[in-house]
């Protein structure tokens, strides 16, 4: 700011004084962006996400029965109610109509096991909306993905209700529920399911994560609509694929291959629906790719080297914490060179 002013003052004495006398050109000075898409609203984006989640939710209902629908209803309703209560407490305009709380609730529900009791969903929603979102100032201000904050909260609180044993019900009539989740099976050295069941989603797992097909369908829709940035899922998948590929080269006869890593667990669900939250992920395309890559690498590290069978939740939360750093490292260079620094 100070630079150009002093330069004109020192260099030419005439221009700045005489300019107003000449016919003033009709210029509007405003900061960018100058062209925006009026159709791109928060509500529109949230509707897109909800549409994209339909295949995953339908698959969950097909595999897990009505408990999946009940879980989605509980989480979505309590998220919306908590959002209304907390925004009311802060004396802000009611923000439930933008649909963001609804999306948080549905994603949260789809990341829980089918067996989670009702209060798990309610407490997770309370933590997601209260601690994950409203405390930071509401939509657009949150550092961490609200749904994952809620899930982490109940995961640590109710380890017995959300750990690996909670997924298995040996007496169930549903075939998927009698077996351990694929990642737990892999961890314990049990026989792993084939790639085709993993791809279709007739395996055990959290509600929305089992079907890779449904996640890819919804994810491609989001990426083509540009509601989600394609760089993030690409980074996540690349990160896991490279590390798992290296491991596969070192142990060629291992039962758990690269494709198992990609199709099993909540990797694709997380890559397409959780990591792509536009609030808590970087803005620049390069930064988005770095963010995705980091999530992928962390997912692989947590899956293979930690006590948890799956690492998408913690990977996303950790990379959310790194987002401001990524922002700083990937500020795009403005047209005409970098912004001059103040002396």
């Amino acid at each position: 700011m100070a630079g150009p002013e002093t330069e004109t003052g020192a260099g030419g004495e005439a221009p700045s004084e005489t300019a107003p006398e000449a016919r003033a050109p009709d210029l509007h000075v405003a900061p960018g962006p100058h062209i925006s898409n009026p159709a791109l609203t928060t509500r529109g984006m949230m509707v897109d996400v909800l549409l994209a989640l339909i295949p995953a939710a339908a698959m969950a209902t097909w595999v897990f029965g009505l408990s999946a629908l009940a879980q989605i209803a509980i989480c979505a309703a309590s998220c919306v109610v908590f959002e209304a209560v907390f925004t009311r407490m802060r004396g802000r305009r009611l923000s439930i109509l933008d649909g963001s709380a609804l999306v948080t609730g549905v994603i949260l529900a789809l990341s829980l096991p089918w067996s989670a009791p009702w209060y798990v969903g309610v407490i997770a929603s309370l933590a997601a909306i209260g601690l994950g979102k409203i405390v930071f100032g509401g939509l657009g201000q949150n550092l961490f993905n609200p749904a994952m904050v809620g899930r982490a909260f109940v995961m640590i609180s109710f380890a017995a209700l959300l750990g690996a044993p909670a997924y298995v019900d040996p007496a169930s009539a549903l075939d998927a529920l009698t077996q351990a989740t694929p990642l737990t099976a892999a961890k314990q050295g049990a026989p792993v399911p084939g790639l085709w069941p993993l791809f279709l989603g007739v395996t055990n797992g959290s509600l929305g994560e089992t079907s890779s097909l449904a996640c890819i369908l919804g994810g491609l829709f989001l990426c083509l609509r540009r509601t989600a940035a394609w760089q993030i899922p690409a980074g996540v998948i690349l990160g896991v694929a490279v590390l798992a590929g290296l491991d596969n080269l070192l142990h060629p006869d291992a039962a758990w291959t690269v494709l198992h890593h990609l199709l099993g667990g909540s990797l694709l669900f997380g890559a397409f629906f959780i990591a792509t939250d536009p609030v808590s992920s970087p803005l620049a395309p390069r930064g988005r790719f770095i963010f995705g890559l980091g999530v992928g690498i962390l997912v692989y590290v947590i899956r293979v080297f930690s006590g948890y069978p799956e690492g998408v939740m913690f990977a996303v939360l950790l990379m959310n914490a790194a987002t401001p750093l990524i922002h700083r490292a990937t500020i795009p260079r403005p047209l005409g060179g970098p912004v001059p620094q103040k002396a």
Partner: protein
Amino acid sequence: MAHDQPTALERFVNGILPENPVYRQLLGMCPTLAVTGAMKPAMTMAGATAFVLIMANIMISLMRGLLKPHLRILVFTLTIATFVTIADRFLAAFMYDMSKQLGPYIPLIIVNCIIISRCEICASKQSLFTAVSDGVGMSMGFALALASIATVREVLGSGTWFGLTLLRSQGEGGWWPAWGIMVLPPGAFITLGCLLGLVNWIQERSAKRQRARA
């Protein structure tokens, strides 16, 4: 100079709520976060801190005429360290389990800012009686703050209060789903944040009401 210092009664009352060490001054955060997982360790910590705070206030107030300005912090620290050592050894001798459980946090009372700030603000300037009432008031404020945080964390986190079962948790065959996270460190931060917000909100409301009345 002396006459514009608060009186003994004011010191006593201020310590409890208006200048509560935890909620208004944000001092002594280390024990506030570390030992409030349950009521028992929290109250032991509050008792030990109260002992050190009151005794240090008495000693400093008695020797306030002898303090040299450039050496006063050193004298404060030595005095506090003496009483912390006494408290630490006492707990180790008579409440061994509690001493084990509190671990390094008893010796860490020595760096609790509440105590040195009371020595500096009150005891080194005012009479013995004022210093004692200040120490008692501040100790009560500190105990109250620890009790409030520990109550929330213990009831939510394990369904008990002072070890008594209020809500039978699922681990013991009851119905209460204990919020494990509340006993862990994140629970301390969340509880402190929520209660701090609540205290600020109450403060703001009462201030607004007073302004409306005036």
